[in-house]
């Protein structure tokens, strides 16, 4: 396939130098505005797909929780950056999926966990106990199948974790 060249930058360009590249809108020709699926019907179809996949999601969540327990055990015995990164990657994916399938608390707890791991200042040490509290909270959401925003206690836990993390991040 023919490659598009990267526009060249002049030698010692002025600070405000820039070049605008306008391209023909080939996609508009490729995608007619008529003749496709009725969008509302397509959205309803997509929604039903998400609902059907929600059952598969619960199985996947179970697998993720099991994996998380193993990674958490590894992190407890060796609280290294590498082990924490493995936990981060797993929880980050869980965070992305939770709310899509009716578990927004997974997303919320995952969000504060990811924020803690990645956003804390370089001179702030990770507290393994705080990591553990997040993981335990995720386990509880799964084991008690807490869908939606949960009860007052659930919300209080999420709020408390968020507050502690914000304090740690500064």
């Amino acid at each position, binding site marked *: 396939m023919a490659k598009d060249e990267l526009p060249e930058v002049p030698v010692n360009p002025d600070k405000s130098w820039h070049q605008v590249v306008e391209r023909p809108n080939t996609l508009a020709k490729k995608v007619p505005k008529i003749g496709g699926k009725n969008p509302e019907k397509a959205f309803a179809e997509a929604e039903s797909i998400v609902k059907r*996949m929600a059952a598969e999601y619960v199985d996947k969540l179970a697998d993720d929780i099991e994996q998380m327990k193993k990674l958490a055990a590894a992190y407890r015995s060796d609280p290294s950056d590498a082990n924490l990164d493995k936990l981060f990657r797993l929880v980050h994916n869980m965070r992305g999926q939770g709310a899509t399938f009716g578990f927004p608390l997974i997303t919320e707890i995952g969000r504060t966990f990811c924020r803690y791991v990645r956003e804390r200042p370089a001179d702030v040490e990770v507290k393994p106990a705080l990591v553990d509290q997040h993981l335990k909270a995720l386990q509880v959401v799964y084991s008690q199948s807490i869908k939606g925003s949960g009860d007052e206690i659930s919300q209080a836990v999420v709020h408390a974790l968020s507050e502690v993390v914000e304090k740690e991040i500064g």
Partner: protein
Amino acid sequence: MSKSYDFTNLRVLVVDDCKFMRNILERMLEALGCGFVRTASDGIDAWEYLATDEFDMMITDWEMEPEDGPTLIRRLRIDSESPARYIPVIMLTGYTEKSKVMNARDFGITEFLAKPLAARSLHARIVNIIENPRPFVRTASFFGPCRRRLNLPSFEGSDRRGSAEDAVEI
């Protein structure tokens, strides 16, 4: 009411390290009427697809291993061997923090879509790419879609396209 866009000829590459998310995205795009959807598991895998086949747009996750979304997008925009320098990119991510969103524009993304995933939002991003293509801008330190027209918090002030603080090092 939305127009009935005919996405039959649209060729979309989905990049996500989570098989479950790849699966749901593929099925959601098919529900919207997309005729050609392929999936890749990370940036390196995606590069191979883009080098061997034609795609009209790419939807990519942020956190992936071994190559993440930001690295893939940067490479596509500036690498001399890029197989798809101008491909529109939707960044689909669990990140919702403002700092992350603002960073994403400097990678050269076209649209930003925060999880949870919803067909209506996905459709809106695809339609925006087709209806409102953004020109590309080359500065001394950036190449990508014009960042002023990205659907992000407003970018105000004088013309700073060429200023160092408005760009990522490449």
